[in-house]
């Protein structure tokens, strides 16, 4: 599964989930606010209605008519309505024309809607009515149009607030999701870099950041440890090579002196010669190991120049033609120059020489080796191919490792370090190196432009079959 798809889905889920959660929280908060707000509003209205009803009912019965009349004269009935009715329901005095039909006379609040005055508009009222001890009916009511308006306004406000909240939630959620996605993608990129061998890369992390940052910091510590362990391992190899050099050189000097002494007979001379040859080979391996280490450590690119790769190929072919001819191998160049590349010319020459030397050695008598240049002017691809026995798929990755030689190579000369040196040169330049099947034979391709943007770019050997 590709990482970005997974990331995108995760981020989107997070965004939507956050928005939904926010909307739910807002909705319930709004519902509670609405409920509490409106009930408080109506409770105040109802309490004042009931209080007035009790207040009026407690007055002396003969005063009631006068009080209602004077009250009506002083306060026009806009909000509060009062009515005194005869036991049969007809109006004695009041600013209601008639007793609302079917209204229970139990002194409790009832919501009614209707016309209260002849020629008036339909009104919303909360009313309470009771029968007085003398049989008359007292009614107090209050127009709740204002409260209803407040209620409607509240509802609208809350609804608009909810919509805004959901939108903001979605936006913020998507924003967080996108940010998380970008972070994850950045982490993914670095992780892939690390997986391809750039152990000095580090995950981006803030010191006081979130859990992801903390995790990244831990990973970075692991990487540091890994890098130092690998460096130690590499140093062990180099140290051994270093340490072997002096005693080996000493042995060679003593053997050389023994040969020059002239005290050896022919058989002894032969033994000494072969021993020197063996020491020479061992020293050559040691020197190669140290050379590879030198290239791998040398992240500097100060020696980089722009030069013609086609010319390098022509010169290498010129140098190796007699050698190839002696081994029965046909060596040809298929490169039209000039093809300018940027790099360390000495190292590229060394790499090309190693590739050609290897190809000629392993192709075998009767086969062909072609030194070619493909790709485009901006992205030239160096290609050394042969139609010899080739390299089995399972062994391809391994041939770039130090010392490895396939079965076919065991009889040929060389330390087995040639291709590791080429890989080290490729890594220094950030060039991609591939070992492919030439059907038949083997084909090494080197992309001569930096694909990994740095001195320690990865060397990949695709195993596509």
């Amino acid at each position: 599964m590709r990482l970005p798809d997974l990331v995108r889905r995760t981020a989107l889920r997070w965004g939507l989930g956050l928005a939904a959660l926010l909307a739910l929280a807002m909705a319930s908060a709004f519902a509670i606010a609405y409920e509490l707000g409106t009930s408080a509003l109506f409770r105040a209205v109802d309490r004042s209605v009931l209080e007035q009803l009790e207040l009026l009912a407690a007055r002396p019965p003969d005063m009631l008519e006068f009080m209602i009349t004077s009250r009506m004269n002083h306060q026009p009935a806009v909000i509060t309505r009062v009515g005194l009715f005869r036991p049969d329901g007809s109006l004695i005095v009041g600013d209601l024309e008639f007793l609302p039909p079917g209204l229970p006379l139990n002194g409790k609040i009832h919501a009614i809607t209707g016309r209260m005055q002849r020629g008036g508009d339909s009104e919303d009222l909360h009313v309470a009515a009771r029968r007085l001890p003398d049989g008359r009916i007292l009614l107090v009511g209050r127009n709740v149009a204002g409260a209803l308006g407040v209620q409607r306004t509240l509802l609208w406000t809350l609804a608009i607030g909810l919509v805004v909240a959901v939108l903001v939630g979605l936006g913020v959620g998507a924003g967080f999701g996108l940010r998380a996605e970008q972070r994850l993608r950045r982490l993914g990129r670095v992780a892939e870099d690390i997986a391809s061998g750039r152990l000095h890369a580090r995950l981006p992390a803030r010191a006081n950041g979130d859990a992801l940052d903390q995790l990244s910091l831990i990973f970075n510590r692991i990487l540091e440890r890994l890098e130092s362990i690998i460096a130690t391992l590499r140093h062990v190899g180099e140290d051994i090579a270093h340490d072997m050099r002096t005693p080996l050189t000493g042995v060679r000097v003593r053997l050389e002196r023994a040969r020059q002494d002239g005290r050896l007979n022919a058989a002894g001379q032969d033994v000494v010669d072969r021993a020197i040859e063996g020491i020479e080979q061992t020293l050559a391996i040691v020197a190669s190991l140290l050379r590879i280490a030198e290239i791998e450590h040398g992240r500097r690119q100060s020696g980089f120049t722009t030069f013609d790769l086609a010319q390098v190929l022509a010169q290498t072919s010129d140098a190796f033609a007699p050698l190839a001819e002696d081994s029965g191998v046909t060596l040809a160049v298929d490169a039209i120059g000039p093809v300018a590349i940027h790099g360390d010319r000495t190292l590229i020459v060394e790499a090309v020489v190693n590739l050609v030397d290897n190809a000629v050695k392993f192709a075998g008598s009767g086969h062909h080796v072609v030194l070619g240049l493909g790709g485009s002017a901006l992205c030239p691809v160096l290609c050394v191919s042969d139609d010899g026995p080739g390299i089995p798929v399972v062994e391809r990755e391994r041939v770039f490792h130090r010392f490895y030689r396939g079965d076919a190579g065991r009889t040929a000369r060389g330390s087995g370090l040639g291709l590791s040196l080429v890989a080290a040169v490729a890594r220094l330049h950030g060039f991609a190196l591939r070992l492919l099947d030439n059907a038949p034979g083997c084909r090494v391709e080197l992309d001569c432009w930096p694909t990994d943007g740095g001195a320690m770019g990865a060397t990949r050997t695709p195993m596509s079959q």
Partner: protein
Amino acid sequence: MTRLLLIEDDAATAGEIVADFTAKGFAIEHASDGACGLAAATAQHWDVLVVDRMLPSMDGLSIIRALRERGVGTPALILTALGAIDDRIHGLRSGGDDYLVKPFALGELGARLEALLRRPADSLSPRLRVGPLELDLIARTARRGTRTLDLLGREFQLLEFMMRREGQVVTRKMLLEGVWNYHFDLKSNLVDVHMGRLRRKLDEPGTASLITNIRGIGFILNAPA
């Protein structure tokens, strides 16, 4: 007797060089740090200097520079570790000096010192002659006696390199560097193959080969006596 000053702090390497070159008939003296070495180098006349690059108290390259500033032109060979080769070291060769990467065969060191001591005169003559061999450097033609030699470009360069060092041992490394411009170890018999072809073209039946193989070291071109 050739007078050689060795400035080297590593006792083992110094011991081997002293033993080997004393046996070869050199008058050799050894200084084990930079300051003593510089003092010794200016105090008396030497034919050739061998200087380690990494020295206590003074860097090998600084010693060479100090000597040149005082007008001492003694040819010098710097011994350097792999990994310390940079442009300044490469520059030694164009400046008439030389360098050698450790570890080296004593034969290699001997051949290079000989080359430094007998630095070929940069003669402006367009013709080179060694015994019956004659090179026309302008027309790029080669002859042995009256016979014209049909040499390829690289073979011509190889022969020119050998003729300029007539009677000197030339190592494979020197040839790789001087003829092919390969400044790295090549574990291949490239030089031998080219040399073999050149020799087949030069040699004449019944006479000794002009170029002989010095086992374990390299080749030498001698004019027949």
